[in-house]
Every structure is written in structure tokens, then in C-alpha cells.
């Protein structure tokens, strides 16, 4: 922490050095770099889905329903990974699915990050009353098991992609708020904060410019790992039929009615789950590396 205290994120001047330091310790971790590479690939695929995907994810090829992937008997290069129960190209659906999943993960992360920072800092800087109010609300949200809370929210709002994002954000928000609050509280007693107060720095400036940069390290790690958790949670909702609705090519939703193909067409079951697993593993590996690089003492909870 000491090194960061000296440099509260001042852009310009000798800016590259903290990043270079971070990269140096990050790149020592082979798993983390591997995760980053795979994740970058997935992100690129998601970004250029239109160019890469051989077919539209929604087009139903009636003549080729449940076509097997290319390495199996009867497979063809037209549908490299085969087609699903409605004759839609699996590869194209998986490619567009990457877009959906990453979109969900990143949106949830950004919204929870911003709300978490605002609520957490407010909580740390406010009177006991406001602090208690926010903390109790977060306690409450944490008392209900994540998926059950998400299910309740989706049941109320109705299943859709947007509501999935809302539900998953509500589920993960308390972690961000608590984390920001706890780290801000720890900073509050330190001398540089007292000094800033004495100099007469305004409250908002104190919150966001003085204290926040010093709380960022754990928050960044939480955000990275939060993306993977959000993707998993959203996929679970999709699987239960409470997330993205058909025909959206969401990986979890693709598995929702995969059960009937277990005997006959295993690739319809295997591929979407594999996509989720690979994405989540690579984000987690990257997050682990980031955590070790930012603060070796920090432990995964």
C-alpha cells in the first residue's frame, strides 16, 4: 500500500512505472497470462462476431436440423460445430453468445462498481444513521442466497436480458459497497486524510480524489472476479428459463432445453457449457494474477 499512497493516480509525468511494475509481477504468473490471452481472444470474437460467425445466430436451416459437428460422422464444414434442435448453427450462436455473456458481465461490473463506490463512500463518510441504513440494506441483500434473490427479482420484473442484469447487479452490489466502505474506513484514520481535512479539502474531493484511489486495489480485483461471477449467475438464470429469452443466443439459455438431446446429440449439451467454463476460468485466472500482483497479502474470500 505504501507505494500507492505516494502516488494518488497522477496521470502524466512518470505514469508508466506503476503499470510496468504491475505488469512485471502479473506476467510472472503463467496462468494469469494464459487467462488474459484466452479472454482477449474471446473478447475479440465477441467484438467482431458479424465478421467471424459463418451464419446468422438466428437463422434456422430446416434441412440441417441437429447436424453433427465436423469431426463426427455425417458432419460438414458448413456447420463446423453442428446445429441445434432448430437447425441454427452452433458456432455462430456460441460466437454471438460470447457477446451476450461479456456484455452482461461487464455491465453488471460497471454498474456495481459505480454504485458500490458511491454507496460505500457515502456510508463511510456519513453520519451513523445513513451508514447504518446502507449497511443494513446490504446485510439484508446478503442474507438471501444470491441465486434465490436473483430468482425473486426476475420473478417480479419478468424474465429478460435487462432484468437479468438488474437482478445480478442487485445480488453482487453488497460486496462492492462493503469492500469500499471497509477500505475507506481503514483509510479515514490515516494521516494523509487528516492532513487533507486540515487543509480544508471539500468532502466530495476528499471522498473521490483523496481516499478512493487508495481503496482501488482490492476493488479492481473484486471487479475482475465479479465479471466471472456475473456471467455464471446470468447463465444459471438463463438455464432456469428466467434469464435471456429465446431466441437470444445466451449460453445458459442454450442449455435450458438441451436435456432432451443428452442421448442423441451430445454436442448441443457440451459446447455452450464449455464456452461458459472456458470464459469463466480465464477471467478467474486473470483475476487471481491481478490480485497477487496488486497485493500479495490479499486472500481470496
Amino acid at each position: 500500500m505504501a507505494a500507492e499512497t505516494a502516488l494518488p493516480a497522477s496521470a502524466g509525468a512518470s505514469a508508466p512505472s506503476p503499470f510496468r511494475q504491475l505488469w512485471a509481477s502479473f506476467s510472472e504468473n503463467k496462468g494469469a497470462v494464459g487467462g488474459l490471452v484466452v479472454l482477449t481472444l474471446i473478447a475479440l470474437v465477441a467484438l467482431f462476431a458479424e465478421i467471424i460467425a459463418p451464419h446468422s445466430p438466428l437463422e434456422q436451416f430446416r434441412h440441417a436440423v441437429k447436424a453433427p459437428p465436423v469431426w463426427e460422422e455425417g458432419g460438414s464444414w458448413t456447420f463446423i460445430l453442428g446445429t441445434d434442435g432448430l437447425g441454427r448453427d452452433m458456432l455462430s450462436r456460441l460466437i454471438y453468445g460470447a457477446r451476450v455473456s461479456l456484455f452482461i458481465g461487464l455491465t453488471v461490473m460497471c454498474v456495481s462498481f459505480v454504485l458500490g463506490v458511491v454507496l460505500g463512500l457515502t456510508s463511510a463518510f456519513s453520519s451513523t444513521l445513513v451508514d447504518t441504513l446502507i449497511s443494513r440494506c446490504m446485510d439484508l441483500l446478503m442474507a438471501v442466497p444470491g441465486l434465490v434473490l436473483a430468482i425473486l427479482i426476475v420473478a417480479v420484473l419478468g424474465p429478460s436480458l435487462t432484468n437479468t442484469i438488474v437482478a445480478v447487479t442487485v445480488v453482487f452490489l453488497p460486496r462492492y459497497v462493503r469492500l469500499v466502505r471497509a477500505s475507506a474506513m481503514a483509510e479515514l484514520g490515516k494521516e494523509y486524510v487528516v492532513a487533507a481535512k486540515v487543509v480544508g479539502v471539500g468532502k466530495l474531493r476528499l471522498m473521490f480524489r483523496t481516499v478512493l484511489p487508495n481503496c482501488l486495489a482490492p476493488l479492481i480485483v473484486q471487479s475482475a472476479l465479479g465479471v466471472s461471477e456475473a456471467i455464471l449467475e446470468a447463465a444459471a438464470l438463463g438455464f432456469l428459463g428466467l434469464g435471456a429469452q429465446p431466441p437470444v443466443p445466451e449460453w445458459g439459455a442454450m442449455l435450458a432445453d438441451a436435456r432432451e438431446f443428452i442421448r442423441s446429440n451430445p454436442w448441443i449439451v457440451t459446447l455452450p457449457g464449455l464456452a461458459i467454463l472456458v470464459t469463466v476460468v480465464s477471467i478467474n485466472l486473470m483475476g487471481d494474477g491481478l490480485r497477487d500482483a496488486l497485493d500479495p497479502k490479499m486472500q481470496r474470500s
Partner: protein
Amino acid sequence: MLLFFLKRLALTVPTFFALMFLTFVAIRLVPGDPVEVRVGERGISPERLAQFRAELGLDQPVWKQFADYVWALLHGDFGTSIVTNEKVLTEFFTLFPATIELAIAAMLFAILIGVPAGTIAAVKRGSWYDQTLMGLSVTGFSMPIFWWGLLLIMLVAERWGLTPVSGRVDLIKYFYEAKTGFMLIDSVLSGQKGAFGDAVHHLILPMIVLGTVPLATISRMTRSSMLEVLSEDYVRTARAKGLSPFRVIGLHALRNALIPVVTVIGLSVGSMMAGAVLTETIFSWPGVGKWLIESIGRRDYPALQGGVMLISAIIILVNLAVDVLYGVINPRIRHGR
């Protein structure tokens, strides 16, 4: 000690009230009319409709409905299912043993494999075993368990025919009477030959699926906490005394290494319940998780409301118990705050 307990207990009271508020508001916000769902498509006369509304208390002002709701909850009345007309509490506790049985089995599976696996990894730090285990742990931690369940059904149950696909026991072969609700106990009590074995067979896959994430967490946690403990002075002393490595690691180190692991186990009760929802849905396991999902499909809001309430209440109480237990074990926590 008593004071510590009472303090912690008092802290849960506002949470409970907020929880009631949350479930109440949530259900109010639901689009669609529960009465219409109950009546069905054909429709009935306006008088009967009004009567239904009065029965369900839906003709009262909202604040009155909330007060009635809280009052009823405090008297142990968690509402009546609109679909089955059963008390939600009765339905819940009929199904709950199935969920507990699954959760306990999964936890035991995770602990019995995770603790030794993590310990060995710590002792053989850096070996191929350690690296493989940590790789598997990240994979397990990242596992979409609904897919994992489908995959296991596909391979183990369908292709290799080693286990049944779903359910808790073969109801065609074995008569099943729920004396305790725990299939492993009931099947023994029934006295039928092979019933217990069949129940175990049914339990294996769901247990593995629900136990995978805790297994990954526990083995990882055991490893890191073991690594820390192994560098402690008392471990060196024990070694210097000439104790066998097995005694040093198994007795002296493991006991202390397990403290954070117990914390993780205590904290994972909530995620076990969430995992149970998915696991039960995949394996048609007749527990509260599957019931909760089904009640959404049937728009059975009292069941959903009561179910969320009960599950959360149980988790709050378990967390309280864990908290108090730490206070008993570790005086620093008790006197800290």
C-alpha cells in the same frame, strides 16, 4: 458470553423485519393477478372474484396487508399455496429434508476429499500434483454446475449406465414411506432389501454436482492455510522433537490449518442453497429448490414468498450459529466488538 449471544441475536431482528418487507414488496410488484391465475382461463362471476379477493386479503389497503403479513409470519403462518391449497410451511418442511440430505452429502463429499487433497498439495508444494490440483480447483470454482450436472448425466448415467438419471429412489421397485424425510434413513427403516443401496446410487451424482464448488474452495483454502501453518514455529518444534511427519502434519498442523477452512464451510451455507436450486432442477430432486422454481412457473406467489422467506431465515440463523460458535472458540471475536 450470554451478552455476546444476545447482542448478535438482537442484530438479526432488523434483518428479519427488512426481509419481510422485501418479500412483501417484491410480491406486490409482480405483474399479473394471482386471483386470475387461480381462477384459470374460463373466468367466473364478479361476485365469486370479489369473494376470492376477500379470502386472500387482497381487498385490504396495502399497509394493512403488510401488517397482516407480519402478524401472520410472527405466528408461524407463512401463507397458503394458491395452487395446492397447502400451508407453505407444511410444504416447505415436507421437502426440506431432501434438500438437507443433499446438502450434507455434498458438504461431506467436499470436506472428505478437499481437506486431504489440499493438505497433500501444501506438503508437496510446487509438485505436479500441487499444480494439477490447483488447476482443477480453479476449474471447479468456475464450473457452471447446471452444465456439469448435464454432463455427468450424459456420461455416467446415460452412456455408462452407472447411476440413475434422476429422483431419490426407484419408486417402482421400492415402496417409499417418508418417516423422517431423509431417504437414506427411510430406506433403511423400510426394511426392503436394496432400498438403501438404491437411495445411495441416486444420491451420488447430485452430491458430486452440488459438492464441486465447495470442494474447489475447500481444497484451495486448506492448501493456503496449511502452507501458512507449516512455516510456524510450533511445527518446526514438533519436527525437531522427532515426531513422524504424519503426526506433525495430521495432528499439529492440520488442526490449526482447519480454522479458516471451518469459516469457509460456515459461510458457504448460503451458496449451497443457491446451488441446490440448480442441482435439484437438473436431477428432479424433490427438494425446496426445485419447488421454488416450479412455484414461479405456476405463479404461486405465496409459495415463492414463503419459500424465499424461510430459506433466508434459515440462512440467517445458521450464520448466527456460526458466528456464536466462533465466539465460543475464539475469545478475541467475542470481546472485539
